[in-house]
Every structure is written in C-alpha cells, then in structure tokens.
C-alpha cells in the first residue's frame, strides 16, 4: 500500500520537479523526463485495474502540465496522454512476470522505449498541427536524449521503490504466489 501511494505521489511530484531541472547541455539540450520512468515501474508492478487508474492519473496530470493553448488552438488536447499511458501499460503486461522475478533491466528498457515513443508521438502531432514536418539532428537529440536519460535513471527508481514495503499480494497465472 505504501509503495502504491508513494508511486502516485511521486508522479505528481516528478511533474512539478521536472520544471526546475535544467536541460542537459551535452545531450543537445534534452530534458530529463521523470514521469515515464515512474509510470513504467507502476505499470510493471501494479495489478491491471490499478495500472489503468495510474494511467489515467498520469495522463491527466501530464496533459494538464503540458497543455499548450494559444488563442483557441490546442496542439495536443487533454486526453491524448491518458490514451498513450493506457495503451503503454497494457502493452507492458506480458513483461510483468519477468519484472516480478527481479529482472530490473525490463523496467530500464521499458522506460527508455516509453520516453522515446512518447516524444516521437508528441512531435508527430505537433508537426501535423503546424502543417509541416521538419526532422534534423536537433529533433533527434530532443527525442533520443531524454530516452537515454530515462535508461540511466530507471535502475535508481527501481531500487528506490524496492526499499519501500509493497503490501500488495499477487496471484500469477495458475494461482502461484508472486512477490511484489
């Protein structure tokens, strides 16, 4: 229970904290995105209904934090991140047994892939809204840089949450008990 509450709180605090973390100069000014890393941990660890709740919570807060309204124009509307996190969480379900066996690298790779796909999708939507598609090294760095940072950060998040008491019993396929 403590770990679940901490996860929800951490996602909110991460959204606020991100605003005070300066871009990383040696990665082309890439930003450190903490939220996808935390979400991937929750998606791999929580039961399916709780994962859906976490997806909606994360998506709504992310959309509200990054909503970009100019005049009457909204570039990425409220709800897109909710959809993204719902589908991402569902896509990560097959990897859950591996993760619960203690394979921390699953979380690491999932965090990198999630950050990469989130930024790529955002960029495609921005380009579609603005009516032109530009792709150069700057764009590559702004997408790949945060993904690399997420890969590096994921083990820290994994081991931090490992320290907290879990308190959620889980029955795996066939009813065997798995430790969270």
């Amino acid at each position: 229970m403590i770990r679940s509450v901490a996860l929800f709180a951490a996602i909110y605090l991460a959204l606020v904290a991100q605003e005070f973390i300066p871009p990383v100069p040696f990665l082309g000014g890439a930003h450190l995105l903490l939220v996808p890393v935390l979400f991937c941990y929750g998606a791999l660890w929580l039961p399916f209904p709780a994962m859906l709740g976490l997806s909606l919570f994360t998506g709504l807060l992310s959309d509200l934090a990054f909503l970009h309204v100019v005049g009457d124009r909204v570039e990425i509307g409220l709800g897109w991140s909710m959809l993204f996190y719902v589908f991402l969480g569902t896509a990560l379900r097959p990897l859950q047994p591996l993760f619960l066996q203690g394979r921390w690298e699953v979380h690491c790779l999932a965090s990198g892939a999630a950050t990469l796909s989130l930024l790529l999708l955002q960029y495609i939507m921005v380009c579609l809204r603005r009516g032109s598609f530009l792709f150069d090294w700057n764009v590559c760095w702004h997408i790949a840089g945060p993904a690399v940072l997420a890969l590096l950060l994921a083990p820290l998040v994994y081991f931090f949450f490992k320290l907290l008491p879990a308190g959620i019993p889980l029955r795996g396929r066939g009813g065997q008990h798995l430790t969270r």
Partner: protein
Amino acid sequence: MNKLHFILLGVAVLTAVVFLSFSSERMRSWQSGYLRVSGPALQAGSAISGRVAKLQKGLKTLDQLEEENAALSAQNSELRASSQLSGDLESENKRLRAALDYRERSAFKLLPAQIIGRDASSWWNTVKINRGFAQKVDAAQPVLTAEGLVGRTTTVSKDISIVLLLTDENCQVAARVEGTNEQGILSGQRVAGNSSPELVLNFLNRDANLQPGMKVFTAGVSGAVFPAGIPLGVIKEFRARELDGQAIVEPFADFSRLEDVFVVLGSQ
C-alpha cells in the same frame, strides 16, 4: 487478460475520449484549476531552486569578488553619467512637447513578476510566472524585461500564469525593422539547438536592404496583442528566398537567464 480487464480497458479509453472532446476553453479552465492546486508546490520548488542557484552564485573567490566590484564601480559611474544625460533630455523633451501642444504619450502599466517554473517538454517554450487573475493578469497580455519582449500570457489561474515565450514557433509577432519600412512576422523555431535561441523574421521584401546589427521592434498593428515599439532583437543575417526575404534575429532578452519579468496590464 480476462473479460473484466477488457471492460476496464474500455472504460479507461472512454474516459480519455471524453477529455479529448473538451473545447479549448474548457481545457484551459481545467489547466487553470491544475495550476491553482499545484501553486504551492510550484512556489516551494521555485524557492528551493532559487536558493540553490544563489548558493552556487555565492561561492566566489576573493579575486572574482574584487573583479566584480571594479566592474560594478565602472558601471555605476557610467549609469550616473547616462542618468544625468537622460534627465537633460527628458526636460528638453517635455519643453518641446509643451511647445508643440503634444499629448503626453501614455506609458504602460507594468506588473512585476517572477518566473517560478519552466516547461520541461521538448516541443514548447513556456514559463510560469507568480501572477494571475488575482493581480489582474489576463490571457494574451505582453510580457517583457528591461531588454525587450519575452512573450505573452496564455493560461491564467488565480496566482500563476503561463507565458508563451517569443522563442516558441507559435508566438508570432508583427515586427518592423528600425529605420526602414520593412515589416514581417517574427517567431521562434520549432526545435532550438543547445546554443542561444534565434528568431526568424519572415515575409520581408526579398529586395530589402537589411544589414546585420539593425534593430527590430514590434510593429503594433491594430488589434494585435503587442503594442508598437517594444524591442525584439537585432538582425544577424538576411537571406532572399524565392518569394520573400527572411532575417535571422538574435533576441535582446536573454531567455536562458530569465528571472524577473513585467506583465503589461494596459496603458496608464
């Protein structure tokens, strides 16, 4: 996944679709609510990050302090001289205006504000300031520093507002080049590199005789957000394209070190 999981997945997708159907005004009001709730956390984060920055700035060697002191003394003398000069100019200006029966030009009412957060996303350039509708800030009001224009407000909550920076591709400003009749639309670039951001001034005459170093100001067309005459930047490069001319402009405001800004509330 069992049947219940599919039903829950459907409900989650439906919830997201409901949010997607919101109008832009409703989305803005939700964001305003989020800013109101997150206000204390943002203010606390800003205070902590300010203290850390001050601590880093404060760690200087004696040589650095001496050097800084000498530079400040020189600057002080220079400012005193220039203040004296501008005082003379002001009195002369007043005398001439009175002689010509000109109306006093209305100055703008400026509200000082501090930056309390920066957009962590990769595709938008916005900052959050510690002023909102409680201090009479409204959407689409210009924000500037002593150096020049910074941007405009977008979403406004009670005590926090979001400012769309001039370096964002969506912040488009009607601009004119000093000493010429050239006017164009100034905006930021979609993805800026690591170096200081540059602006682009589009839709100029392709035969325009623009030289590096020429200053760019807001044009203040009727119905626009920005009044005329606010400094924007200086031309760095001009290139003629097939149909029009484009200038690369270096902004006056230093966007990497923005701390204190002013919101233009209106004329006095």
